[in-house]
């Protein structure tokens, strides 16, 4: 997958027009291909995204169909049939029914072909096509995730902005430590706490279910908290690095106020590295949906995943995993295509994933190794 290599704003800032080998932080893949036309660039990005998606599908196939010693036993036990109770003839029949008598590569090719035609197989426990199950469950989850992502962005931005702007030390420390707590407490526990307070004690929102917009609030907040915390951590760090840059001093020396310099010159530069973790955050909401929908008993894709794993319904698990990967790939593709518009320094750079790298980890070790420290002389 692809992502701009941004190791703190400083690294980007010094990546001037200097030719030849640049800093070791910049991945070897980061080559600027200015000659390539826009069309070719977009086509290349899309092709790359599709390859990653295919590879993710293959990895899932390998995990689910090759790892267990006996996929047949897995499939049969999902239907409450013990392998030992079957006669050899019955076993052979069952194998043939699931296509397991064929070589692995043939099975792989058949399933990949089916998936490309939109056929993700049939749920073993529910005996319904997986696509139909997804179509039923997806809208609710999309609503929930969409709201959660919006809340997360708004919350994260607010906290990060204030943490960088406030100068009173206690408030600054509190604001910069707040996201740590958001990351530390498990989201299912946070969900339970919210239910206890806002549903049971105050009675403002329904505790469970998916009836009406009011039922959306608590689960959306639950999902947004860890995401916004990660977002806030990355953005705060990035903002502070950017505010230490010489061009901020230049801007202030022309008479711009601190808030003005932060808004005009720091935020935009600081937001660039956080873009690269957007895919990760959106992918993370799918994960968040599993836990959250279980806590709030909402019939969505997350709940479907939990049920499928419990009943070892392999086709459904595979479909959900690939769906999450697709969300990640899609968001990263969009970021990829938008990035050159937002950062003029990068025309069409081949990018490598930021993803779960330190920058995404928030407390990124030495994100800003390239930062120039100016000492007073």
């Amino acid at each position, binding site marked *: 997958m692809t992502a701009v290599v941004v190791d703190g704003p400083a690294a*980007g*800032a*010094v990546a*001037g*027009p200097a*030719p*030849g080998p640049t800093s070791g932080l910049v991945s070897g893949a980061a*080559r*600027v*291909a*200015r*000659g*390539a036309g826009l069309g070719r660039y977009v086509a290349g990005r899309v092709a790359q995204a599709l390859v990653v998606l295919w590879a993710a599908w293959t990895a899932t196939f390998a995990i689910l169909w090759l790892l267990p010693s006996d996929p047949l036993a897995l499939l049969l036990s999902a239907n409450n049939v013990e392998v030992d109770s079957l006669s050899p003839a019955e076993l052979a029949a069952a194998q043939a029914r699931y296509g397991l008598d064929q070589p692995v590569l043939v099975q792989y090719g058949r399933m990949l072909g089916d998936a490309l035609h939109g056929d993700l197989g049939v749920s073993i426990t529910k005996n319904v096509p997986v696509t139909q199950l997804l179509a039923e469950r997806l809208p609710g989850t999309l609503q929930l995730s969409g709201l959660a992502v919006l809340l997360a962005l708004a919350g994260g931005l607010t906290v990060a902005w204030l943490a960088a702007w406030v*100068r009173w030390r206690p408030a600054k420390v509190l604001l910069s430590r707040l996201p740590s707590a958001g990351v530390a407490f498990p989201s299912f526990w946070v969900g339970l706490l919210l239910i206890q307070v806002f549903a049971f004690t105050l009675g403002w929102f329904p505790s469970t279910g998916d009836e009406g917009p009011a039922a959306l609030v608590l689960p959306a907040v639950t999902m947004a908290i860890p995401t916004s915390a990660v977002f806030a951590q990355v953005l705060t760090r990035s903002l502070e690095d950017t505010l230490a*840059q*010489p*061009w901020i*001093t*230049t*801007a*202030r*020396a*022309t*008479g*711009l*106020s*601190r808030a003005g310099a932060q808004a*005009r*010159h720091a935020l*935009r*530069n600081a937001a*660039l590295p956080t873009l690269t973790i957007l895919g990760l955050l959106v992918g993370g909401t799918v994960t968040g949906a599993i836990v959250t929908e279980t806590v709030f008993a909402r019939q969505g894709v997350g709940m479907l995943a939990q049920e499928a794993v419990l009943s070892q319904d392999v086709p459904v698990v595979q479909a959900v995993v690939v769906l999450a990967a697709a969300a990640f790939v899609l968001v990263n593709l969009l970021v990829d295509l938008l990035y050159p518009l*937002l*950062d*003029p*320094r990068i025309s069409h750079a081949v990018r490598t994933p930021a993803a779960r790298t330190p920058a995404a980890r928030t407390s990124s070790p030495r994100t800003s190794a390239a930062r*120039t420290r*100016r*000492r*007073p*002389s």
Partner: protein
Amino acid sequence: MSAAVAPVTPAAGRPAGPVVRLEDLHVAYGRSRRDARPAVRGISLEVAPGEVVALVGESGSGKSSTAHAVLGLLPASGHVTGGRIEVDGLDVTRAPDRVRRRQRGSVLGLVPQDPGLGLDPTLRVGVQVAEVVRRRGVPRAAVGAEVLVALADAGVDDPELRARQYPHELSGGLRQRVLIALALAGHPRLLVADEPTSALDVTVQRRILDHLEHLVAERGIGLLVITHDLAVAADRADRVLVLSQGRVVEQGPPAQLLVRPEQEYTRRLLAAAPGLVVPGLVVPGSVAPETPGTRTRLVVRHATPDDATAGSTAAEPVLRLHDVTVDFPQPGRPALRALDGVGLAVPRGRTLAVVGESGSGKTTALRVALGLQPVTGGRVELDGRDVTDASWAAWRPLRRRVQLVHQNPFAALDPRFTVEESVTEPLVSFRLGGRAERRQRARELLDRVGLPAAHLSRLPAELSGGQRQRVAIARALAVGPELLLLDEPVSALDVSVQAQVLALLADLQADLGVSYLFVSHDLAVVAEVAHRVAVLRRGRLVEEGPAGQVLHAPADPYTAELLDAVPGGRHAAAVAALAGAGAGVGVGA
């Protein structure tokens, strides 16, 4: 261009007093008053309109802190702990940021240190300038035109094109001009220029300084220049303040201060500054260029070619590059030719200096000599042996003969290695000697480079820059090489330390007979060490010859341009005139 000569034209209705007045200013850093480290301890100065004042000092002298205090832009940990700051006749020592902000841009403008990082990388140049113009209250319709005026005033060519470009699309010199335009756009009456040109090539530096000077003369703007470079201050300032450890050591007009310094510190600073040595103020061992046809006043230590360098009849050179070409392939574009048919020879026991501005290929030449950079064409000979395409294994025994001293002493030593481990590492790599012998050798080497044996157990973080460079030199000497490759070995050091390291290199050459390939951008430094000089420009060899010849009677106009751009020239001329009038004074070190 002293205040007395230049017509002072203050803005209408303004008092003609100083724009900035500092009285006994104290600045300290620290989270609380208790653990505050003082950076400025009682500096007083005044800058009047049309006047150029230079603050000169080495790192840690408090010069930048003073500049930031004037602007009210000290970092969060910095405080004014005493004294008085007056801007425009107004006491702003304790003024809130609201008040200071109104003065920034309109009364005070800043030309910052590093043009590479001084501009917002994501906004077009024109947008950034327009922001300042608008804050001046210019009506919306007129902003565009005013932006172009500001850019043109700063000497930016083709302002309309530049306004649409992003900072990364501009060269360093142009970015510096844009920064000047930003400072000018608010119509300030004082420019604070914080090392405005130290990151630029010498020819660009000269043009920028000429332009700033022109602005001061033309508009009656005051200029406060912060610089580490005594030569720049000597050439450009009406008044020079020499700072050390937060205090003013000495001040006065350059013709007086830099010729008859009263303080020991100034005298030493002056003696250490290459390029300021002028006729009549002779450094022992140097030859004053008084022959007709001499182009510069640079004092070349090895001005007369000695036997070893006289001609090709002398001993076989240690290292020879024959017609070397290096291409860097670039995807989608023709390859970048870093070196184009360059031939160099390092004479045995002597120093060949390779000089050039950024992009000249001088570092590539050094890497070729080191076997780190494969060549596209040509041959490399070490001790008469062809090593052009030698593998790492074939090179390995030769490594004992060629060693490198890196430019940046702060990154050249492993932070986890003690001095002893660093110095003995080549011995370990070549499996030379036992434990005790290595330790003994490390002591000798430290002694050789002028460091006490007590430093053996120290980590790099506990050493100063000059000490680290000494350790790096000791490490390079450990295996007894014949040739040292010196990549800008003193460019990261303060001027006084620079002089000491250069002296050390000269001593080592005299005692051990090592040859040097010395890569530098600084002609003044080169004049101190080189026997022969090669000038590179955009990958081509422009000129090569004995140091005295190249630096005193350059054959190529580019070399002449480089020499002319070395700061200190005007001062030298002024002093030479004084000396001619019988006022020559010696500066003792």
